[in-house]
């Protein structure tokens, strides 16, 4: 039996959200952090109180996308810790506020411990929690899904064969576990029809490769401008679930 003293409080905190959305990608480098950030901004600016958690403990980068300097920010303490308010309706928590952009090598059980610690002490006030998780079926993603079976995974995939094979494995895994998905976002794709052909389902959103996207990183208005329209369908799908 699980006797980790943090688990009941974590479950209570996660249940306080109307929706928990782990953003997952079967492979690295497919734009998971970009989509998680843009989607959070899109929802927040629609007026929905949104929480964003960077759960990629060994390599957190979401703060860079949001234009925040992790070195100079320490979340405020108040009967726990309060996430950082990035915008009026967007609150954000990242392990980078504590690791300060230094390397953070963690063995498997330590990743789980760090995730539990952060989930136990962070006091969110949003209606939806978007979680940027590490690539693959990571310890972090598995632990999050274990702690909150009602999570709805958003899968990010590119359209090349390797990525589609990995995506198929993730879809099969979720189905077998009885876990639910919001859908697939095809990112940096020219032919989204490949998704339909290979995975027997159509992508909820299809985002093209944006030339020079790196220049937009850190500029929230520009990130949203570049991706917001492409993510409208995901936004409406999420709103329908709230």
């Amino acid at each position, binding site marked *: 039996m699980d006797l980790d003293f943090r688990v009941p409080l974590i479950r209570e905190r996660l249940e306080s959200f109307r929706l928990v959305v782990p953003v997952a990608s079967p492979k690295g480098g497919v734009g998971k952090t970009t989509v998680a950030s843009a989607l959070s901004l899109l929802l927040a600016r629609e007026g929905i109180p949104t929480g964003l958690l960077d759960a990629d403990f060994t390599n957190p980068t979401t703060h860079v996308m949001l234009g925040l300097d992790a070195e100079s920010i320490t979340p405020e303490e108040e009967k*726990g810790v309060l996430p950082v308010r990035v915008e009026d309706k967007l609150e954000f928590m990242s392990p980078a506020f504590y690791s300060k952009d230094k390397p953070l090598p963690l063995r498997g059980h330590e990743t789980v411990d760090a995730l539990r610690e952060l989930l136990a*002490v962070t006091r969110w006030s949003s209606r939806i929690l978007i979680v940027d998780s590490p690539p693959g079926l990571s310890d972090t993603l598995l632990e999050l899904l274990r702690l909150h079976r009602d999570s709805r995974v958003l899968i990010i995939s590119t359209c090349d064969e390797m990525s589609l094979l990995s995506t198929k494995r993730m879809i099969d895994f979720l189905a077998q576990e009885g876990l639910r998905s919001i859908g697939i976002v095809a990112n940096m794709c020219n032919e989204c029809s490949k998704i339909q052909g290979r995975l027997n389902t159509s992508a909820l959103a299809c985002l093209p490769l944006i030339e020079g996207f790196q220049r937009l990183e850190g500029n929230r208005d520009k990130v949203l401008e570049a991706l917001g329209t492409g993510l409208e369908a995901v936004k409406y799908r999420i709103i329908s679930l709230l």
Partner: protein
Amino acid sequence: MHEWALAEAVARTVEELVVKGRDVREVEVVLGELQAVDEGVFELALKELFEEMRREKGIDVQGFKITREKAAFKCQVCGHTWTLEEWPVKEEFREAVHFVPEVVHSHYSCPRCGSRDFEITAGRGVKVRVI
């Protein structure tokens, strides 16, 4: 007061055990040295939370005791073992480690070979034993 959240986690755990039918007489909370939890603040918070549980939910925990555990480390690379007393974490990083003990890997390394790939063998953070 981040200690409040840790005490709240302990109280929720006890509550869940009692609701599931377990007879909880006493709770032992072990505070690991690495996380440097303020014992006074933590104790006060836990007292208040247990009192609230008694008042609002009729759950009566007779007592709790707080013990401390020294932190110890073992390097995964060279096998060296050491304690916090022998090799302290720099003052400026203690607050970060207090919130998320695992970030010690970012701000601290093996005193012998310098590797960040070490194991926290004892005294990481808060642990709960139900008696």
